[in-house]
């Protein structure tokens, strides 16, 4: 009886050793793999301001708007007049589509789900839950006879 107990104890001990070794081995293989799978945090671009071309940019004149790159962010620049130019984040607050501008009805419009924003960026119709983030626009003069340059910066 005593011998048998001792035998069982040894077997259980060995099984435990084997199990924990196998477990540790699996963990030491899986841990780096799981960590590798989760992408590292890449710092956001530190863009402070972007030049968006002249105030009489043909694209601005015909469509009334254009989309520019602000670091990794798309930004919509809307031209209402020579002196009134506005910029907002072009990412729709609903499901992150890129918005456009409908000149005839003076609305910023998202084609994905017909979200609408007014010219202050406020969500006025459709599903968007929040207003668009505004950007600061400066018009830098380049001389008396030349069109100014639109400079967009974080508000």
């Amino acid at each position, binding site marked *: 009886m005593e011998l048998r107990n001792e035998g069982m104890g040894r077997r259980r001990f060995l099984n435990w050793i084997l199990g924990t070794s196998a477990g540790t*081995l699996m963990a030491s*293989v899986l841990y*780096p*793999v799981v*960590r*590798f*799978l*989760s*992408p*590292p945090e*890449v710092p956001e671009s530190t863009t402070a301001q972007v030049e968006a071309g002249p105030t009489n940019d043909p694209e601005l004149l015909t469509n009334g708007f254009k989309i520019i790159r602000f670091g990794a962010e798309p930004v919509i620049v809307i031209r209402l007049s020579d002196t009134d130019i506005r910029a907002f984040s072009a990412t729709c607050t609903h499901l992150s589509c890129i918005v456009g501008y409908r000149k005839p009805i003076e609305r910023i419009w998202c084609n994905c789900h017909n979200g609408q924003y007014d010219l202050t960026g406020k969500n006025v119709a459709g599903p968007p839950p929040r207003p668009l983030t505004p950007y600061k626009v400066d018009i830098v003069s380049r001389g008396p006879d030349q069109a100014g340059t639109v400079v967009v910066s974080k508000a």
Partner: protein
Amino acid sequence: MSLDRVPFGSWLDRRLHLSGLLEFAGHKTVPHHRFSVVYYLGGMTLFFFVVQVTTGILLMLYYRPSAEGAFESVQFIMTTVPFGWLIRSIHSWSANLMVFFAFVHLVTVFFTKAYRPPRELTWITGCLLFFLIMAFGFSGYLLPWNKLAFFATKVGTDIAGVVPVVGEWMLRFLRGGERVTGGTLSRFYGWHVAILPALATLLLGVHLLLVQMQGMSSPPSEEAKPDRRSMKFFPHFAMRDLFGWILALGVLASLAALFPWELGEKADPFAPAYQNIRPEWYFMFMFQTLKLVPGGQILGVEYESIPIVLFGLGGVVLLLVPFLDRGIAVRGKSPVVTAIGVLAVLYILGMTAWAYGNLIPIWVGLATVVLLALFSLFTYRPQGRGKP
């Protein structure tokens, strides 16, 4: 082993008929003799192949195959992704170890004459797998898009261009154009991650199926003995296999951690060639041979193309060994083929040593033989010294 004792065992068995498979595995045996250690080499190569597939898939999550992004993405993997340095180093080290073990496997199969009937097809699929492994190595070498890789690929593909008649076409086919460009990179990437793995999986399946159907071959000297012994595959052989794989994983992790694979400088197609441009070690014997050939022509054929064509023929001869070696099939021995094999191995070792200007390749060759002998102490027990 009974399926009834496993949770869902009988449920699965009714659907998949696993008991037949278990029955087969239970009866499977492996010959047990003093050269049994060589039976673990194929499994070892397979282990490194599995490591390659796993780490390769992981690397694909961050790698970008373009001239603009490749180097930066590998740099990102090495410096920013958690354990990226480890995964990439393991991929590089395991690639080299896989080539090494595939070569040792091939050499031992050759000298134990395991290719003799009825195992000709196993040999041929094995040789093709070996060539595929070299192609994996060649295509993977370019992917980090560093200077060394760029010029090595330039030289390597140029060599293909020297082959008479089809050379020009081969060069364009390999490079995807006249020059080594970003186009070559995406092409090599396609080969490396899609075409070659698909071919390798197919061939590997056939190779392993043949090994299972025909069993392990015993060397002729052992087969002639009256008191042949064998070892049960489950659990004895499989446990030894597993032991070897865990050992290999330890060696691999140590190598990757202690000697992380370098990335070097980004390739610049308009920069002058690097000093010491050279291919991976397993191409060095061919590289050295080509270096020795003088410039010139004979009957309109460039001297340079002669060794290239000869190496190509060498590959074909290797593939056809089971059919060329009639002696082993008819008389049960073929000393001439063995002698040619010894000369070929000596040539490869000698040329590699010459290329590096040191004796390390020779020492590695000797160490491999010594290690195999040492490991056979674990895998083989002479009769009368306890059960295997």
